[in-house]
């Protein structure tokens, strides 16, 4: 096990071009030993490139890959002690579950008694102890995926287990079981787990720490709560949470007061460059409140639509070209025409050139 560090890494698939296009723009980041991480972003954001750099399938065009103090940049996959779980379970169908789990240790010529001990231990954690003699191909999809994972767990020298969309082919009811298992395994073995996905809910459900990527850049690293409450960029505000964050262009009238259309809002940010043309206000639908009358940070708008989802309602309201989506409790009686919506100052996020101030 090791701390994995990418040191000033960048990658281009066309290093000889005059103006090379970078699939990964320069960044430095690290994964602590034993952590539960997700690498999240839309397709084409660079997450697979990053995964391949960690596992050694790609040598980065710039920067170094460090496992603790060891520079592994030039090492091939086999020399890196990385285990991988893919979208589709990779198992040896004609072998028994026992033989599947023992395989990585057999290849490394471990003594039989050590193999036996390790396989039994891991199979109990994975609830596969009753299936050890069964052929692997007869198992359910989630059990097969556990075998793929188990082959990483039997090796004590594994620096990290990389999982690329591991729940894609798993039925919804089984997903639940497998998710719980993954968390338990991480707690027991303290193996670093890195989960790659485009699905925000999967990432947030699995990881303590999420690295959000977009267009080759690392845009934010944080806990699910941090990503939700303080998105560092407008992209994260849009991408995390449902509905997406409400985002408006604005101008600053002082360091803590902004104007959106004809409305003025007090905010708790400290805007240094009040002349900036690239200012935006972001506020989550969940934090907007419905008021009885006008007041501070409150706008008057026309109700366009109220959608009743049973457990909550979504209000779509507008003031000229300004559109507001507010999420409110189901009990609330929503006025049918005019509505007063308050943007509490502590929940107003101010962005300059799409980065949080």
């Amino acid at each position, binding site marked *: 096990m090791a701390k994995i560090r990418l040191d000033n890494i960048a990658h281009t698939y066309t290093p000889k071009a005059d103006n090379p296009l970078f699939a990964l723009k320069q960044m430095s980041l690290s994964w602590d030993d034993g952590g539960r991480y997700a690498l999240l972003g839309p397709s084409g954001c660079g997450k697979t490139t990053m995964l391949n750099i960690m596992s050694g399938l790609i040598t980065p065009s710039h920067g170094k890959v460090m496992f603790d103090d060891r520079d592994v940049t030039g090492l091939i996959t086999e020399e890196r002690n990385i285990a991988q779980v893919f979208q589709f379970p990779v198992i040896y169908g004609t072998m028994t579950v026992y033989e599947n789990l023992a395989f990585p240790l057999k290849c490394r010529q471990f003594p039989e008694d050590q193999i036996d001990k390790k396989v039994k231990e891991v199979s109990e954690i994975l609830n596969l102890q009753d299936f050890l003699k069964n052929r692997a191909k007869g198992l359910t999809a989630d059990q097969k995926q556990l075998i793929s994972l188990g082959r990483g767990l039997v090796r004590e020298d594994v620096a990290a287990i990389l999982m690329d969309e591991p729940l894609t082919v798993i039925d919804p009811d089984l997903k639940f079981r497998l998710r719980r298992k993954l968390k338990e395994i991480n707690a027991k073995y303290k193996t670093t787990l890195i989960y790659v996905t485009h699905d925000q809910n999967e990432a947030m*459900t699995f990881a303590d720490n999420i690295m959000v990527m977009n267009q080759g850049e690392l845009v934010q690293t944080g806990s699910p709560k941090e990503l939700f409450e303080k998105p560092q960029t407008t992209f994260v505000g849009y991408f995390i949470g449902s509905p997406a964050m409400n985002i408006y262009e604005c101008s600053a009238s002082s360091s803590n007061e902004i104007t959106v259309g004809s409305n003025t809002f007090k905010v708790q940010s400290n805007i240094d460059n009040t002349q900036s043309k690239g200012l935006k206000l972001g506020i*989550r639908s969940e934090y907007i409140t419905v008021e009885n009358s006008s007041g501070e940070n409150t706008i008057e708008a026309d109700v366009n639509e109220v959608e009743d*989802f049973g457990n909550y309602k979504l209000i779509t309201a507008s003031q000229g070209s300004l559109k507001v989506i507010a999420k409110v409790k189901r009990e609330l009686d929503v006025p049918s025409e005019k509505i007063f919506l308050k943007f509490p100052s502590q929940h107003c996020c101010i962005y300059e050139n799409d980065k949080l101030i």
Partner: protein
Amino acid sequence: MSLSLNNISLKPTDEYHLNDISLNFEPGKLYTLLGRTLSGKTTLLKTIAGLQAPDSGSINFEGKDFLSIPVWNRNVAMVYQQFINYPHLNVKENIEFPLKHRKMDPSLIEKEVSEAMKQVGLVGFESRKIQELSGGQQQRVALARSLAKKAKILLLDEPLVNLDYKLREGLRGEFKKLFVGVETSQSILIYASTDPLEAMQLNGDIIVIDEGKILQSGTAKEVFENPVSSKVAEITNDPAMNINQGTIEDNKLILNNHVQFPLPEQLKSMSSGKYLIGIRATDLYLDNQGFDFDVDISEISGSETFLHLHNSDFKCVATIEEVKTYEVNERVKINFDLSMIYLFKESGELQNSPYKN
């Protein structure tokens, strides 16, 4: 003129795929066929489209025996889960294909196609190749093709299920606006879904299907407020309504040895005995005065956290209105909004609901 299904059954093996289904669809209305995977949704849609013949029963449309009409003459359009398009044709050619096949007047084709492209937001993409499109765009093409056909019956089989939730969120809103058009066109629109929130948002009539049987049909509000059985309550809520065995005895509502309440006012008239007790995940909440529960796993969905919990044999899911990570086996204190309790007979039939007078 309405579409009616009379006692439709299909039993290819020992089990029914469709079990004695009778339904009536009115023109100009939107219906959501809501059921879990393998409940018979796709089979029912295929039967209406003519891609699958039932073993018994009849279908009438506009006063004619629909089953005797071959599929190509039924004036039905269907959109599938998978993005089905002609890969060798560009976007425009894909959309006009059925109209050309019908040998429609070229100027009329031009008009219908450009209208459909405008409706689904594909203007500017006319000459793009299908492979160059994202999943969301491909599904727009399939939808535009079915809209351009101006079919009297439009069948959509989980059209958004293969899209990332962020795309789904956007497209669902757009689809809903499109469907407003069914009223004017007097088409019948049937939308199959596994997602209760989708069904609520579409806000048409909901038809609940399970194991090939229709369990309930009614407006979204009716089905949400008064599900006829515990099964319907599970299927029409996400997370599924918590249903557990319980007892009313000595003026107490007993869920297990630990979790017990004084009998709430609205249940005082219920006789003592065993029931299935239902409560929605949103009606459980964190409360320092509450009962001890252990976390099985926490799942984050959009802006909410679903806590899967147990107190000895009593299992439930609670929705927490924030994004927060809980550890496996973490202890939390949970309370119940007793005004929102549902009672079902042991056989599943609804006995008492918060909305029943």
